[in-house]
């Protein structure tokens, strides 16, 4: 009985970890990191309204660089 519970618990923990990692990976695929002179860093992910126009410029530059 105890062994079954342990296996079930392991399965649940593993699933949660997998979901977390997958969500994190998906979220970090597109982002903009801003580095300031005082050493601070601001990360804007693609789902933030501030990142969208910055990513447009970045894609334009990348396309021009690779054309």
């Amino acid at each position: 009985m105890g062994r079954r519970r342990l296996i079930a618990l392991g399965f649940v923990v593993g699933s949660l970890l997998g979901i977390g990692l997958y969500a994190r990976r998906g979220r970090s695929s597109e982002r903009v990191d801003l580095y300031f002179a005082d050493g601070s860093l601001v990360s804007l992910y693609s789902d933030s309204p501030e990142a969208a126009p910055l990513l447009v410029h970045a894609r334009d530059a990348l396309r021009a660089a690779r054309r």
Partner: protein
Amino acid sequence: MTEPSVALAELTEISTQIESAVLFDADGKVVAATIPQERAAQVATSAKALLEQAGQIGEGELTQVEASTEEGSLFVVKDSTTMIAASTSAEPTAGLVFYDLKSALRAAAEPPAMPKPKAAAKPKPKRATPPKSSGTS
């Protein structure tokens, strides 16, 4: 002076992650690039717009930006007068790329190395004129 184009050539030689780089001034005018002029001008325009828009977000002075997209990453680093934009493949080692870009910016901004002045010709030591012999010993 390290020519800006030489600095960029060394940059792409040293860094395996950087695909192309464009050096431009505060007006967006291309100073040097590893890609053809027309494309470099477009990269400079977009990178400058990116910096300007990003600069409005934080309160401090923006010095560098990394924009990661599915197609690859765009890095922009600025100093007081010039900026450099570089494209890399997806998921580069950001710290290394920033280090290489800053080194290239510094190299391009270095004052010209002055040629060593020729050593001034030493005046030949004057021969001591032998005392005139009086003819008598």
